């Protein structure tokens, strides 16, 4: 199996606190990995590094086999735009933009025309059950719907890996179920997913569970 992402001996020190204490992990194509652990164990910190949003203090990150140069901001932006899709607990939709426009944003950054981008945004939103709500502003959508728009946005450029940090953290059980079903369906269709959660029930449904405690990986199932 082809490795999409690999981290080797990652250490992260923030203000003299060693938050990640040597973590190695690899994500293969088609994986659905959940990172689980108690609050403060360093899950988010690890995901930021794997998502090329933050730089490790030590260790290396290989994206599709190539060592990532964290000084090359342009390249980092390019990889994040084309190859990684992010979903966060707080959906971070841009309130001024409609649902469809929010989904368009990452596509506009590529050379895609506005028309094509809009078309794809509509079809993504439709796939996620948001047909007819494309032109609503985020505040006109429920929390669950907003999170689905964020997922559509993460999928906009057909990323090689989807990363989600507590994507259901803010949702009720019904919406949590909807989001989880979407992730499972996406993974069935071949999408590689890395999901941070502290809900063991959700983690169990993924292909691989990585448990973290206090900055180290204590178990992989």
């Amino acid at each position: 199996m082809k490795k999409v992402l690999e981290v080797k001996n990652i250490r992260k020190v923030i203000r003299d606190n060693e938050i990640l204490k040597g973590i190695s992990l690899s994500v293969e194509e088609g994986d659905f990995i959940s990172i689980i652990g108690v609050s403060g164990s360093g899950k988010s910190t690890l995901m930021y590094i794997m998502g090329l949003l933050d730089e490790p203090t030590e260790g290396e990150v290989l994206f599709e086999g190539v060592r990532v140069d964290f000084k090359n901001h342009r390249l980092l932006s390019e990889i994040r735009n084309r190859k990684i899709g992010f979903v966060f607990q707080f959906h971070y939709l841009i309130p001024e933009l409609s649902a469809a426009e929010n989904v368009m944003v990452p596509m506009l950054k590529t050379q895609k025309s506005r028309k094509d981008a809009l078309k794809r945004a509509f079809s993504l939103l439709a796939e996620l059950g948001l047909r007819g709500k494309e032109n609503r502003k985020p505040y006109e959508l429920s929390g669950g719907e907003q999170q689905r728009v964020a997922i559509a946005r993460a999928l906009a450029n057909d990323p090689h890996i989807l990363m989600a940090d507590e994507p259901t953290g803010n949702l009720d059980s019904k919406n949590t179920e909807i989001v989880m079903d979407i992730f499972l369906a996406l993974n069935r269709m071949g999408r590689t997913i890395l999901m941070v959660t502290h809900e063991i029930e959700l983690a169990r449904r993924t292909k691989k569970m990585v448990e973290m405690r206090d900055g180290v990986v204590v178990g992989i199932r």
Partner: protein
Amino acid sequence: MNHVVFISFKLLSERKRQAIVSVLGVAIGVTAFIVMSSVMMGFQTYFIEQAVDINAHITLKNEEQDEADRILRVAYGDGVISEVLGSKPKETKDKIVDYKFIISKYMQSEDIKGVAPHLTGQAIVRYGIKEKSVNIIGIDPQLEVKASIIDRFMEFKRLNQLNVDRNSIILGSLVARDLGVREIGKKVTLVAPNGSVHVLKVVDFFNSGITSLDQTRAYLHLRTLQTILDRPNQVNELVFKIKDVDDAERLSRVISRETGYYAESWQKAYSNFLKIFRMQNWITYMIVFAILVVSAFGIFNIMMMTVLEKKRDIAILKAIGFEDREITWIFVFQGVFIGFVGATLGCLFGYLLQEWLSSIRFEVVGLIRARGFILDRSPVYFVYGFVFAMFFSTLASFYPSFKASKLFPVDIFRSGG
């Protein structure tokens, strides 16, 4: 760039009220600049044009000079004599001796359009029981029209009457008003300094719009005045009209050197006014500058606030792959847009205000007399106003935009945004 403009616009269009306030701030600054410039420069240019053209570009006089000093300098050369003690001002002859030669010489010059002789003096004009002291100027109408534009200010265009009827006089319009002379053809009495009394017919009024001139001047034929003042064949002033008014300083020095008389350029003659104007311009531009700076601060503030409020959006945009440069442009573009719309509106308001100002009519009596505002409606002020506004609003948006681009998305995500 497309995506940057798109997002920039979206962000801006959702904060219409703030955007409108900043746009108006810029517009007011630009309008103020255009209108103040055109009113002020209009007035100054008008004043200078009138004054300069009436009073000649260069005036040649027999200025009182320190003769002893001058002779010694000629004898021993400049720099040898540092001070001459005990010299007294002597009465020098108030006349230009070889004026006919000077006139014919400079008439040939490329740079000079016309030269005319003047004899100037003081007299009292009486009309009935009223009397008024005036500066009388004896002119040769034929030469005068080539060397100045006084004919343009003749209310009845009858400058040439001075030639036809040697016992005629042209009164400044305010002199005439003060004396109560309401129409031409009236006879006034002129009392010369030597006591002689002459009856002259008023053939025209001189109305330049420059209060100080119209209030004190009277024109006679040169020959008439020479007779009245008992100074046959004498003139004490030559006036020059030159091709390029800005060249007056240099030419005056040349003429001074060549003739030995004192040649005064209009710039020197009006140096007080020019100084005042310069100061006036400074003050105006300071005010306008202040307005522009204030509106720039408005933009700065709003951009700063926007950036603070938009931290979440900036974070996600960066996560999605927007580069620092692009984030900067998203915000700078808003400033540029505000500046552009503000400047355009400002130009429009400026134009409309100019239209209005130039349409209103009222009597202005001061340094000049006019019926309403005299505007300099040069497009240059629009261009400057526009460019300044664009510059300031772009500048004002740069720092907040730069700040925005330096936000570290992880910090935002961590804090829950």
